[in-house]
């Protein structure tokens, strides 16, 4: 397996399978009374978060602690550029304390890749700007696979603000890698630039029409839409967005029975997803959260436990 996890492209199909298998074992640990494995004892993992994120950070924190690693949270929000300290200096300062694993969350695309060039520590991308969020894609794919049995030839529909979404970018790469068929849905203003050429190249489909594609979906992933996008002229109003692209109660009715509904969270109930859909039996949202810990334990284990992982 690659030293770092910066992008879904760092993983071969065999690596994903190993990660999923280990995650399944890690899931069991979550249900024991002693939620501990000694595998990362003596390893130090720093969560270096330049952006707020309670859920991802605590997910990584629990994952590290359940593997007996020493986990430290460093909130670098508001540092660096504003204080005139370069990103490189911030990273080197943290790494100089003797760090085995660096979990990075940053508001700028490419930050994780750049950071990996400045330190010997293992770097795990916990979300870099609009670029990627590999562990999110892993837990999404793992959740859907557990529900459907397999991802091979399954039709996954991803809906929402694709332009600004790292969850979309990682998922579209990973699902295709695992043999799923992916269709992405968004209004034209929220489709990424160059998506026509890109989708042909990467093998996914695009459409503006959610109603046409939804009945054929084996799984649906709703992405969070930020209301602030309205001021950027991306869509005129929240209700227009919901009518065109929200998973409303009516749309819930046309979904295939058993088709899991995923959402990376936090949800805008009523905007991109109706409350009924979020709480439906088909909703996999809570599974995603528990899968998140298992997947992150699996990632931390595979990247940090074996030889060559020490700082």
């Amino acid at each position: 397996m690659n030293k770092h996890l910066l992008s879904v492209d760092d993983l071969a199909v065999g690596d994903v399978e190993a990660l999923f298998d280990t995650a399944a074992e890690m899931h069991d640990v979550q249900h024991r009374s002693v939620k501990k494995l000694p595998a990362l004892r003596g390893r130090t993992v720093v969560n270096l978060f330049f952006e707020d994120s309670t859920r991802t950070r605590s997910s990584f924190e629990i994952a590290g602690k359940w593997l007996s690693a020493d986990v430290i949270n460093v909130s670098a929000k508001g540092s660096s550029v504003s204080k005139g300290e370069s990103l490189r200096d911030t990273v080197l300062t943290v790494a100089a304390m003797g760090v085995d694993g660096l979990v990075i969350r940053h508001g700028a695309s490419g930050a994780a890749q750049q950071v990996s060039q400045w330190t010997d520590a293992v770097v795990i991308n916990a979300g870099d700007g609009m670029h990627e969020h590999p562990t999110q894609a892993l837990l999404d794919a793992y959740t859907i696979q557990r529900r459907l049995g397999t991802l091979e030839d399954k039709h996954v529909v991803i809906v929402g603000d694709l332009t600004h979404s790292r969850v979309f970018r990682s998922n579209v790469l990973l699902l295709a890698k695992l043999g799923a068929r992916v269709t992405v849905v968004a209004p034209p203003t929220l489709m990424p630039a160059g998506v026509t050429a890109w989708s042909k190249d990467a093998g996914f489909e695009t459409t503006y029409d959610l109603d046409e594609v939804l009945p054929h979906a084996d799984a649906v992933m709703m992405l969070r839409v930020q209301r602030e996008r309205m001021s950027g002229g991306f869509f005129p109003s929240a209700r227009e967005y919901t009518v065109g692209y929200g998973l409303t109660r009516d749309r819930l009715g046309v979904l295939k029975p058993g088709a899991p509904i995923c959402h990376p969270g936090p949800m805008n109930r009523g905007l991109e997803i109706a409350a009924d859909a979020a709480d439906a039996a088909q909703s996999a949202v809570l599974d995603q959260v528990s899968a998140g810990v298992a997947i992150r334990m699996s990632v931390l284990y595979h990247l940090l436990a074996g030889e060559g992982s020490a700082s």
Partner: protein
Amino acid sequence: MSALVIKGASVLGDGGSDVYVENGHLVAEAPTGARVVDADGLVALPGLVDLHTHLREPGREDAETVLSGSQAAALGGFTAVLAMANTSPVTDTAEAAERVLDLGRTAGLVDVQPVGAVTKGLAGQELAELGLMARSRAKVRVFSDDGRCVHDPRVMRRALEYVRAFGGVVSQHSQDPDLAGPTACCHEGELSGRLGLPGWPGVAEEVIVARDVMLARHTNSRVHVAHVSTAGSVEVIRWAKSRGIDVTAEVTPHHLLLTTDLLSGYDPVFKVNPPLRPAEDVAALRDALADGTIDAVATDHAPHARHDKEHAFVDAAFGMLGLETALSVVSDVMVTSGAMTWADVARVMSQNPARIAGLDGHGGTLAVGQPANITLVDPAAVVVVDRADSASLSRNNPWHERKLTGAVVATVLRGTPTVLNGALA
């Protein structure tokens, strides 16, 4: 003053002959007691003129000073450079312009011609004291808010009209801030979509170029388009010229060769404004330079301290070094391919820029009687660029480890060699 005999140079690429220099001018006969420069196999060009550099002084002397910038310029074959106004404080008064002028004279390696801001503080609202800057010792003729676009059409119109009184010209950084905002950093296209980098669409440049040529026509003034980067802008400029509109344009060496694909590693050394574009735009720019639609090559030399580049791509500073490598890039991309001759290079790197900037002492034809501003080029020299080997105080060099054919060997400023054998004299 020195006397020089430059032996056996191919003057403007046209056959070997000798060039004689005495008392700072080109003379018809070999002067006595002259220093001999062996120019066998070399091409002699009129001293190169750069319409667009950032020398960072005053304000960011950690990145570059007028002295270090002058050294880099001389090594690049330049005898005159225009220093953009986005210093700290901004060059928006006569005093500030004279300060930069004096720094250049003290350094004494290149003629540093200050550019004046179009608007006070580059804020884009009120005209700066354009007339006072023109009347100052700095004799400012080129005005630019470069770094920023003069976005308000009314302000741009007034500026175009006002400078006619003293033969000035506005050099516009064409970027509509509503179409390409401050975070825009990657050509908007497939790569920006994949990488999740905020896009800088070509149309954000083109709408301003189109607007400005129409304003130039309406006000009967001339306008200069800085660092043209898209095929669409070239189309507009070509159309405007065919209509007799007084528009001139420049292109950077990096936009003639480097493409947006280089951004896939998120290396901030390739972050520049306007951004690197796809191959189709690069091809259109080359054609436009060769056919005269684009009048000049200008480096947009933009030094940055290391810590300003060592950020995530979106947060890093915009800009690349360019003075020392410009001639080699143009030689490699345009002359070696046969698209341009050395006479063409003289036109776009010396004569046109001098004319646009109103620098009478530069951009000659190496004719007797003209000031002896000369650049000697070895067209066959192969250089492998080493970013550490530079007179600039900065190291944000996108050409590192690239092999280029063609190099400046010597530079002469009004008869005095500033560079000999590729090193500062």
